[in-house]
């Protein structure tokens, strides 16, 4: 069985279907990039896995543990709260708008979740937090508040904050879309580094060159369905679907 199994996910907002039976199965260590036009449902799909959206129908199984299942024609049934929480803690999520906590320093942003959620002592989490901040190159910024950071720095702190919870899957929801072009590189390099360490990742992105370079598999979504998926070379150089081709042409 795959590490992540999402089957026939259906989701509507106010009767408007945004996901129409979208499926994805991933192995541990795999990096999947989801591309597609705005409103294609790609962020929603990612958010379903991160438990920020409740699906209408479909099945999600992570590491052998079902999060939500659908029997026959019924509605999706979620597992108990405790299991939901356990699965949530396997995920780290990074947002377009960073969502750092503005009233805390960089250091506290990283420490707060391990302390509150896992009940760890500050002294026990400190070495990990220090290593993570050094990894994203922001150790010297540990005592500043997020408002003093550039967008790229904020996003690197957000990545470190997610990693501090020691997740086995990282979800990136358009991590560079809110950044000035000259700041995207530093964030992409950090994600690249995680890929090299074989972190399982799903990246929703508009950065085509980056998706091609970092992902093992590209998924092209439009109108709430997966139009095409495959190895980066195949999807980018030889797209089968006319939708994919039109989209890629428009991105150039």
């Amino acid at each position, binding site marked *: 069985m795959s590490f992540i199994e999402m089957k026939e996910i259906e989701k509507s907002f106010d009767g408007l279907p945004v996901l129409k039976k979208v499926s994805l199965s991933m192995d541990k260590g795999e990096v999947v990039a989801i591309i597609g036009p705005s409103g294609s449902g790609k962020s929603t799909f990612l958010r379903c896995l*991160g438990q*920020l959206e409740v699906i209408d129908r479909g099945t999600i199984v992570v590491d052998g543990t079902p999060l939500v299942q659908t029997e026959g024609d019924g509605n999706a049934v979620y597992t108990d709260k405790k299991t939901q929480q356990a699965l949530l803690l396997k995920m780290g999520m990074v947002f377009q708008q960073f*969502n750092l906590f503005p009233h805390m320093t960089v250091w506290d942003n990283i420490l707060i*979740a391990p302390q509150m*959620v896992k009940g760890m002592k500050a002294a026990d989490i400190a070495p990990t937090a220090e290593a993570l901040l050094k990894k994203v190159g922001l150790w010297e910024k540990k005592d500043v*508040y997020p408002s003093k950071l550039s967008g790229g720095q904020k996003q690197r702190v957000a990545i470190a904050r997610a990693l501090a919870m020691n997740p086995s899957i990282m979800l990136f929801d358009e991590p560079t879309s809110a950044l000035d072009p000259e700041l995207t590189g530093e964030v992409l390099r950090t994600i690249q580094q995680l890929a090299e360490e074989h972190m399982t990742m799903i990246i929703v992105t508009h950065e085509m060159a980056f998706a091609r370079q970092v992902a093992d598999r590209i998924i092209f979504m439009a109108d709430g369905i997966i139009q095409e998926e495959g190895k980066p070379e195949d999807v980018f150089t030889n797209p089968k679907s006319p939708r994919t081709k039109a989209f890629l042409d428009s991105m150039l």
Partner: protein
Amino acid sequence: MELIDYLLKITPVIANGLGVTVSLFLIVLVLSVPFGVLAALLRLSPIGIVRKIMAFYVYIMRGTPLMLQILFIYYGLPFIPYIGVQLDDTTAAVISFVLNYAAYLCEIFRGGIQSIPKGQYEGAKVLGFTYVQTMRKIILPQVVKRVLPPLANETINLLKDTSLVYILAMNDVLRITRGIVQRDFDTSAFIVAAIFYLIMTFVLTNIFNYLEKRYAVYDE
């Protein structure tokens, strides 16, 4: 010089009212802030009936005069079947002030909570925070910074509103002052009372300025 002697003579008498004014103010402030936060959280509850009840409560408290509420709690409550009790004047005053101020604070905190971006909740949720942890550690600390200016307004209003307890014959600063004015046929006692209120609001203003500066260490 006669005036100065007179003012010096009545000042300690008026100061006797500070006990009632200050203690009522402090008790009501300490109680109405947590009640106001709780009311705001209920006002934003996912349960429709809870939201409606809180909206109705706020409507009643803001829609009728505080003086009427004080009179009702003190004189009207004993006539209500089953729950009717005769409260002493201080208890009646505290209850009516807390009910009234918690309603105003409810709306201030509600506005503050709703002004926090959705992303803050989502950021906390994916890190595994429970609702209570999210509120306590992430949302409410940010709300405090945003509501400090309106909170300062309400606090200063409360200090001055305490003078309404004269209706229950409680001897606060203003009631004692009125007594002196009526006894001596001399309105200069009002000046002394005004100075007492100004000194107290000066202290409050400075406390809030200090808090605003402290919260200014971070920007949104």
